[in-house]
């Protein structure tokens, strides 16, 4: 079962030595920049909530990237990836509690490594079973194993802590140079460091023989067998590596939330990472990063703003699948040649129209959904509500009228916008092609 992204997984192949040197320089620059951003972000957005948001983004990025090692690079669609992050987390939390109890000493900063090893261990165990099959069968087995682990979580309270899960305290031992991991800010920086390292490691992996063969297996498992590779073995190894990184994410989540429950291995988590990865774009390395950031924004920021966040997320996801199966990253990649040919400016007008139309439609959608939610879900204490600063009564006629108007206008704009974009796009494409010839 191959992922349906129409875009090549960018083959960052090294060409003539000089070119490769330039590339690797560029790469260092990119990583440096990423590090810088991670460093300054919490300074731009102080405040506990922002920190919490950033921390969870960091964790989700690792998780999504590890998932994409399977989906994007090896074409393995897994519905149970959470068991690796989750079980890794459980291992980590037990270790942390032991440390807390003083049974042995181990720096909290390296706890994610424990999680990673835990994840990898279960990767070895379950992976052996799951990776013997590929395609749909693989997907189903992962689903089954995921559910099985989740269901059995309540059966082994010693390990999973039953309904209550296992709480812990990340502040153990005495602070090293003032780092106790009490303050959320310190935890964020720990996550940031691990996130950066994991990203680099996982990117580096895509540039190794195994990484490339994984792509080959994704594209054409049969042929891979005829160039000397045991596809089953390839899938197994990738699964273990991916489980390792998932485990790191789990270990970090332990430090961040200080509790691990059976949900950590549950289908919701597994589904979430799939959503995030797909939305971001599994065909490009950095796709899942975008996806993770968006997903956390949805799940945290949006969920604290509106009860309808799952609706928005689901809608967004479905539309993506239907119209942008390559994910957001693919949209960006599409622009690359234009930028290279310095023709992107030709697209700007039509794009901006499209953007405008999109915003109107979005406004219409949000207004409608929010009114309905207000009426349907918490009208117990009155139907008065405020949206974007406007206060109004959801039960009254006016907001509906506004919504309807927005829909009409937005719809019309959208139609023109789409055709405009298409025309501009074709024009530019032919230009580039002509220039090439």
């Amino acid at each position, binding site marked *: 079962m191959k992922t349906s992204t129409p875009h*090549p*997984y960018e*083959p960052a*192949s*090294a*060409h003539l030595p000089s070119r*490769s040197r330039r590339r*690797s320089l560029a790469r260092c620059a990119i990583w440096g920049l990423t590090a810088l951003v991670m460093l300054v972000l919490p300074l731009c957005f102080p405040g506990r909530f922002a920190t919490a948001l950033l921390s969870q983004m960091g964790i989700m990025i690792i998780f999504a990237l590890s998932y994409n090692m399977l989906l994007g690079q090896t074409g393995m669609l897994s519905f149970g990836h959470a068991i690796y992050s989750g079980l890794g987390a459980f291992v980590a939390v037990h270790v942390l509690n032991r440390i807390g109890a003083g049974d042995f000493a181990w720096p909290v900063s390296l706890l994610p490594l424990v999680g990673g090893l835990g994840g990898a261990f279960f990767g070895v165990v379950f992976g052996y079973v799951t990776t013997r099959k590929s395609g749909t069968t693989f997907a189903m087995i992962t689903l089954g194993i995921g559910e099985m682990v989740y269901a059995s979580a309540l059966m082994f309270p010693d390990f999973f802590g039953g309904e209550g899960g296992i709480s812990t305290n990340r502040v153990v031992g005495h602070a090293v140079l003032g780092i106790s991991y009490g303050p959320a800010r310190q935890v964020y920086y720990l996550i940031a460091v691990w996130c950066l390292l994991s990203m680099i490691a996982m990117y*580096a*992996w895509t*540039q*190794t*023989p*195994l*990484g*490339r*063969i994984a*792509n*080959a297996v*994704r*594209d*054409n498992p*049969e*042929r*891979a*067998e*005829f*160039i*000397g*590779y*045991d596809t089953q*073995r*390839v899938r197994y*190894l990738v699964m273990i*590596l991916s489980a390792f990184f998932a485990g790191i994410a789990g270990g970090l989540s332990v430090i961040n939330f200080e509790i691990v429950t059976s949900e950590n291995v549950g289908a919701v988590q597994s589904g979430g990472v799939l959503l995030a990865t797909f939305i971001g774009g599994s065909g490009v390395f950095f796709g899942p990063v975008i996806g993770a950031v968006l997903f956390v924004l949805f799940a945290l920021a949006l969920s604290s703003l509106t009860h309808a966040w799952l609706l928005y997320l689901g809608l967004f996801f479905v539309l993506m699948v239907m119209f942008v199966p390559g994910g957001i990253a693919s949209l960006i990649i599409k622009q690359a040649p234009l930028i290279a040919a310095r023709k992107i400016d030709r697209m700007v007008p039509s794009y901006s129209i499209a953007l405008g139309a999109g915003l109107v439609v979005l406004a219409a959608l949000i207004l409608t959904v929010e009114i309905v939610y207000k009426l349907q879900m918490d009208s117990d204490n009155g139907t008065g509500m405020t949206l974007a600063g406007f206060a109004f009564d959801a039960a009254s006629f006016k907001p509906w009228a506004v919504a309807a108007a927005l829909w009409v206008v937005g719809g019309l704009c959208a139609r023109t916008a789409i055709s405009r974009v298409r025309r501009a796009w074709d024009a530019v494409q032919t230009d580039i092609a002509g220039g090439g010839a």
Partner: protein
Amino acid sequence: MTAALELCAVRKQFGATEIIRGIDLSIPKGERHALIGPNGAGKSTTFNLISGRSTPSSGSVKLNGVEIGGLPPYAVNRLGLSRSFQITNIFHRLSVFENLRCAVLWSLGYRYSFWHRLAALRDARERADAVLERIGLQRVRDTQAGLLTYAEQRALEIGITIASGADVILLDEPTAGMSRSETDHAVELIRTVTEGKTLVMVEHDMGVVFDLADRISVLVYGEIIATGTPDAIRNDSTVQEAYLGTTLDTDQAGGAH
């Protein structure tokens, strides 16, 4: 010296129907051998049995004297046998270069390594580029293989097959669906890349066959009805009847020219 490839009483059933009805074939090292026969005769199936894609129901297949019948494809490949496919079978989302580099990795001993940086592997890069040059696809080095024209894909198909440097090569209808000029080019390509190697190929195009092959085997309904030099085959009456004969008489003329 042992034959490069030796089939002994090989049979294959699919459910009720027996497709291969006992093939005996011995191909010495360095020979260019052609396997011809009507559609559905079992040529591709024979290739599948040799290359490990499917397992013989009975009989033995030896590669350089080693029994390979029933081994998985990758095992057979590691023993130095490489094949191409009748229906193009490439890594369509990887660039042409990556296709070839993947094909050389195992033979260079990098196996499942995730501690080497591809960019740092000069030998892999150079081997891949060399093959690229031989199949004349430098122009499209970094194009996504899926976007190549049919003929280019066929060339890449051959490239992937020879890249690993295997010394026994199986080509299944390498020129299928190529225009005449493309065909001629393909023939030259095959001739050069299989220099000093053992080649077994399935081909419908008599021109190609008589042009390339040292020896020819005619497979009809799962049995080899004749094996011999091109001339011997051309003048073999049973072959006339069973295969060549069914096409227009001018075909022999065509073959003879």
